[in-house]
């Protein structure tokens, strides 16, 4: 059986919800960042799948995937900078302990 569009979409959806679950349940910021990466990659998978199966002669999906990877890299850099700063001020990277946003 050849893997079809549906299989790929199933994988990407699973990846997405695993990412979302991780995003909401983890307390460690690094893990949260990893969950975000999962979500982004599920989207990438979607783009590639649709590109391949629906418009195989065009490159829009691939282009967007590259774009998302680049954004993800930049975002990781920013997020890690935030994490380091948070660690410096709170001596911890537990999001539960950083509640100042409400003020």
């Amino acid at each position, binding site marked *: 059986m050849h893997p079809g569009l549906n299989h790929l979409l199933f994988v990407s959806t699973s990846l997405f919800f695993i990412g979302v679950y991780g995003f*909401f349940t983890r307390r460690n910021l690094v893990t949260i960042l990893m969950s975000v990466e999962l979500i982004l990659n599920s989207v990438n998978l979607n783009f590639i799948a649709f590109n391949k199966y629906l418009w195989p002669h065009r490159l829009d999906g691939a282009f967007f995937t590259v774009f998302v990877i680049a954004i993800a890299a930049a975002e990781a850099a920013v997020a890690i900078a935030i994490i380091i700063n948070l660690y410096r001020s709170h001596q911890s990277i537990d999001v539960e302990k950083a509640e100042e*946003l409400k*003020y």
Partner: protein
Amino acid sequence: MPNSLYIACIPLLPLVSFALLGLFGTRVFKNLSGLLATVLLVVSTILAIWVAYNYFFHFGQANGIYQRIIAGQVTWLRFSSELSIDMGLMLDPISCMMIVVVSFISLMVHIYSLSYMKGEERYPTYYAFLSLFTFSMLGLVLSSNMFQIYIFWELVGVSSYLLIGYYYDRPGAVKASQKAFIVTRFADLGFLIGILVLSFYSNTLDFNTLIERLTNPASPGLKTALASSFLGISAITWGSVLVFMGGAGKSAMFPLHIWLPDAMEGPTPVSALIHAATMVVAGVYLVARLFPVFSISAPASLDLVTFVGVLSALLAALIACTQTDIKRVLAYSTMSQIGFMMFSLGVARHGHEEQLGYSASMFHLFTHAFFKALLFLCAGIIIHLVHSNEMNDMGGIRKNLPVTHICFLIACLAISGIPPFAGFFSKEEILQASWQRNKVVFWIALTTSGITAFYMFRLYFKIFWHKPLGHQASHADTAEGDTMIRLPLVILAIGSLLTGFIPFGRFVSADGTPVHTDLNLIFSVGPVLVGLAGIFLARWLYLNKNDAPEKIKNGTRALYTAAYHKFYIDEIYVFITRRIIFNLVGKPAAWFDRNVVDGLVNTTGNTTQIVSKKIKGLQSGKVQEYAIYFLLGAGGLALLFIYGWK
């Protein structure tokens, strides 16, 4: 013609001294502040006299008629190409006369206060306020623009308020200052509306243009103003009457006079300057300034001026007979004399033959400034000696205060209209003018001048005679103070003696042409006799202690009580304001404000507060909770777009 810079210096020098003393007085100048203000004012006075001299003898006349000259003008606020508020300097006979009177009397008061107010805690502030007043009053009389005069009008009101409340730790003074401010402010409301009415029809605020447009029957402005009427009275008459209302408030005319007697809570030199000689005649000045409009276009308003003037003169004279506080007696006499000036303006009409009243009024204003300032300055010394304002605490002090005694006597004779003192000449002219125009006014005026002589000499005899000599144990030298106090008295006394001989009608008249004021000796006999009768009546009653005054008091109990209580005018005001206005207007307004206006605001606030209390738990500060809301929102939107979007 003098450079306009010199003329501008006349009001600006006192402004400089106000700024210096107001900013640095208490820290830098301290006891020198009086001297500083006085020196600047000396310069200002010399300039004023010089300008007036040049105006009257050199450049003022063209073809034998005194012109209204704009010596300098700066546009301050421009509304349209025609309508603007300018700051200008207007020279005409009355403004030239007034700058001399104001700066001169103010100078006398400055000199007098140098030692009279010495040792006061707020000595620099006192001089700062005096300078502010002098600046505003000089600016007022030199105004070339209707709105400019209004600005300075309010400025003199403020400085009067500040000076009445100078002893701010006395509740009486505080109340009096507020009363004066509120009453005159209320009158100024009318003045402002009057300005708006007159400027609406003439489409200008400039005095020269306004007078020209509102007196020329061919001008469209006057035609519309005469044609449009409200309650059967033409718009121009309304405008004039409303302007006169402002003047009546400032000049303490009935029924807006109630603030003046209370204003005596201020320091006595201030009463002399502001509440006797200068500021209170601003209303007369205002009517005189707009006299062409009053006389040509709205003669009916002059009848009102006459009526109010006569009534004020008579009422005030009656009240003055019963008061025992010497400053209050003087205050009522001021009001009475201003009444004379007012009705004298009122009986004057347009035209060369009928304008005698105008010159007479200005003449009386001029002479009155001298003898009334003198009376108040004397009263200051007397109060200083006796430590009381009450007439009954005084008596027999003529040897303690020899100079004051003579000066006071001169001023009393002047105000009673006894020749050859100044008041005689001006009062004669007023009586003559009213005789020509209205016999009823003449008879009331004659009676009033008799009463004036009576109460002034009642004051004189009760202060200086009445009790045995040496009643007040005090050294003559210390009692009367130093030369600085006596000098202004002597100068003003000389003024009260000599100013009457000025041929005033030659210089000051409504249309700029000389008015003949030859004294009619036969006519003068009556008024002088009435004056003498008043004096002798006072002498008989008050020279020595006797029971005649008591008997008369008992004989005319109703009139006496009414006059003693100032004809219950204050009580009527209290009744109207407290019972009627507060209950019928104030309370409903307060209810509306508290329940409807405040209610709306409070409801808005409370609702916001309740809602925010309910939803503030949502904001926990936990990033992940926010992310959940975000996700729910995004999910909700997705569902909406997929299923809800048609």
